[in-house]
């Protein structure tokens, strides 16, 4: 396949940045999207041009490091991560536009690389069960109904890639935050800190400058791990319950 790539180039955080067009030939349908970019980068490097910087690591769709806003959609046309997207989803002669995640809370570091440390800080605000290593009960002393364990697992599958934020017109991080709140709210282990967790994580999310949720469902539609928007409903419930009966005086 022969492709035209319109790629966002930005030297660093303070650079203004602009789109640049590249022609790339000989692309095989069996390549992954990132392998296609590898080929482009090899060509650029051979010519002595700065390769296009993008985040990626496991290339198995689980680490959450790859991002890319492809043809106006986070992770491109399929509901998967960019690293699992293959060129068979595109046509010969197509022009593909590639941008970084666009959100104020995810500043661009270079080209397609953004800073998602805001997500780490949301987890640091309460996305854990406060148990130290050792001194915990036997694993089977906490029976958990299978259905709840499965629902918790559905929420826990979030890979923290940020597609939900990129998809949302408000750049809201509610799907990400609610996935962690839900996982722990569903499990007995999470009960003790349930209220505090909801309050603190929501507060941190707001402090990072993420927008509010207006229930358009774009996040769920684009999430590569099919995290359900019902988690947001659960988070709202958790949050309001926590606020009206707050122990956090």
């Amino acid at each position, binding site marked *: 396949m022969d492709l035209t790539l319109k790629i966002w180039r930005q030297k660093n955080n303070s650079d203004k940045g602009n789109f640049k067009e590249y022609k790339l030939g000989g692309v095989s349908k069996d390549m*992954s999207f990132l392998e296609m970019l590898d080929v482009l980068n090899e060509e650029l490097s051979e010519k002595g041009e700065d390769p296009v910087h993008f*985040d990626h690591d496991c290339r198995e769709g689980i*680490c959450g490091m790859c991002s890319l806003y492809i043809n106006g959609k986070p992770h491109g046309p399929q509901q998967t991560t960019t690293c699992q997207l293959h060129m068979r989803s595109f046509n010969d002669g197509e022009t593909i536009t590639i941008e970084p995640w666009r959100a104020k809370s995810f500043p661009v570091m270079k080209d397609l690389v953004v800073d998602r440390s805001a997500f780490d800080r949301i987890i640091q605000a309460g996305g854990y069960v406060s148990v130290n290593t050792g001194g915990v009960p036997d*694993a*089977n002393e906490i029976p958990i109904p299978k259905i709840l364990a499965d629902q918790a697992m559905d929420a826990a599958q979030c890979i923290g890639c940020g597609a939900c934020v990129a998809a949302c017109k408000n750049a809201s991080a509610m799907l990400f935050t609610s996935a962690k709140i839900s996982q722990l709210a569903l499990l007995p282990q999470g009960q003790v800190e349930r209220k505090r967790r909801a309050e603190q994580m929501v507060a941190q999310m707001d402090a990072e400058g993420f927008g509010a949720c207006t229930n358009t469902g774009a996040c769920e539609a684009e999430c590569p791990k099919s995290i359900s928007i019902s988690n947001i409903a659960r988070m709202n419930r958790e949050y309001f319950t926590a606020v009206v009966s707050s122990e956090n005086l």
Partner: protein
Amino acid sequence: MILDSKIPEGSLAEKWTKHKFNVKLVNPANKRKYDVIVVGTGLAGASAAASLAELGYNVKAFCFQDSPRRAHSIAAQGGINAAKNYQNDGDSVYRLFYDTIKGGDYRAREANVYRLAEVSVNIIDQCVAQGVPFAREYGGLLANRSFGGAQVSRTFYARGQTGQQLLLGAYSALSRQVANGKVKLYPRTEMMDVVLVDGKARGIITRNLITGAVESHSAHAVLLCTGGYGNVFFLSTNAMGSNVTAAWRAHKKGALMANPCFTQIHPTCIPVSGDHQSKLTLMSESLRNDGRVWVPATQVIAEKLRKGQIQANDIKEEDRDYFLERKYPSFGNLVPRDVASRNAKYVCDEGRGVNETGEAVFLDFRDAIIRDGKSVIEAKYGNLFDMYQQITGEDPYKVPMMIYPAVHYTMGGLWVDYNLMTNVPGLYALGEANFSDHGANRLGASALMQGLADGYFVIPYTVGDYLAQSPSTKITTDHPDFLKAEKEVKDRIQKLLSIKGEKTVDFFHKKLGKIMWEYCGMARNEEGLKKAKAMIKELKSEFWSNVKVLGENEELNQSLEKAHRVADFLELGELMVDDALNRNESCGGHFREEYQTPEGEALRDDENFAYVAAWKYLGEGQEEELVKEPLKFENVKLTQRSYK
């Protein structure tokens, strides 16, 4: 040089308990006077950093990814072993110990492996308490499945994403300590060197991957939790960023590298599809619980299949060779990874491979779907099937999967004693970065176990023992040894940038990978290894005269990052070849063609090679010195490993 493994006295079952009592303790009020550096935030690193911070030490945690949650432990699929015996099927600490020693083909230390089995049960308790959503039965208790090399069901799992859930558990514990101010995080930071003061590890030099700033960090102990070096093969199941740099720099500063040639080639990966390929994707070993591995019984049928004249489902039952079930009736498709991989290679070498390249075998779920129904199989492996379809474009519910072995894990690593300390005082290696527990072959679902055992349950005791005997005085980073190490790092960066050659970094990496896979991969022989050594030497000298590294240091520069890593892989590759050449026997994943039984199984030489081969760096361009640590087996009898 004599290596002291510091294995405690006493019977196997008492060693760890007694050792825990004998180690020196740091008073709770004094712990805050000590600083510990943890490099890498995978299972070993995150669990160690969190546990040490909980105890009160000041921890600095480093990772090259943008967040500690992305370390490659996250990609582990199948599960984690623990000797809980919840299934009442005869499991015990001793059986897990025995299976692991045997699975490793008797090239691991008894005492370390026993301790691993012993603490395995605590890991599951810890993870459940953190809220890790393990799979459960309807009664609410934990579910188990079985894995290769074992005849009991002792593997705990969270769908096909066990590594993800365990890592997010450890990451949550780490995040809690960041919030508490006990851990300072340094993401997008690469360790470039370790700093020794008076022979002890007292800090590291790092490069900030965003700004290029070279910085010094001082501490009382340094923990390397930096994973394995499978990417020396270019194509592997490792993440693109996984590298040997931290371990290799420590090696060049005096830490011995043990059994570097012990590489695990995983049998169930998606086969290579073309030259553009950047990495290989694993299909979890758990699939072998229900999938049956086969190839056509004859070359003629295989030929037709490769030409597309017939399809897999057209091949009649009597024309299929379920070669693992045929050769190993008692373990069947669940033989250990090295055995499964080697047999896949044999049938493909015979011309019975099933894809266009002839390098693939089938993993077929037809019978399991008929037996259990599609929904049961979907519940167990749905995400893996989806991933397979995403990558290959084929539906594994309808046609058999195609798989082929690929580099997956490295059993070798930095030499450590029973306390996980390298031969450099104050420098520790945890998880895949060390060599200690898996011998010549790792059993499935044991990597997660080891990473968390080291981080949660071993290091908090053993680091304390070391710190209790060290003064709490701090060394500032303007110390001459720090300044010298910093200058060396900066000089190397300048050197790489100034070559301005013609070939890209990836060109060298791919070439090295091909040499390693061809001559130091699934099967090795003396002639090939000697050839490989010469080729690597030549490639290395070409690298340092003709590599093209673009851009500058003072920016995000992925080409420079890769150049550092590939330079180290080139040196490591040569040592792996030396190690494989030295070990004139076959054991586990190390298969020397000259040494095999008449049935083609690995033929060990216990009389001459029951030792850990630890290598000492002697200087640029010099051959490394071999230091042997003899392995003593007091509890298990060394036998020809049999899975028949």
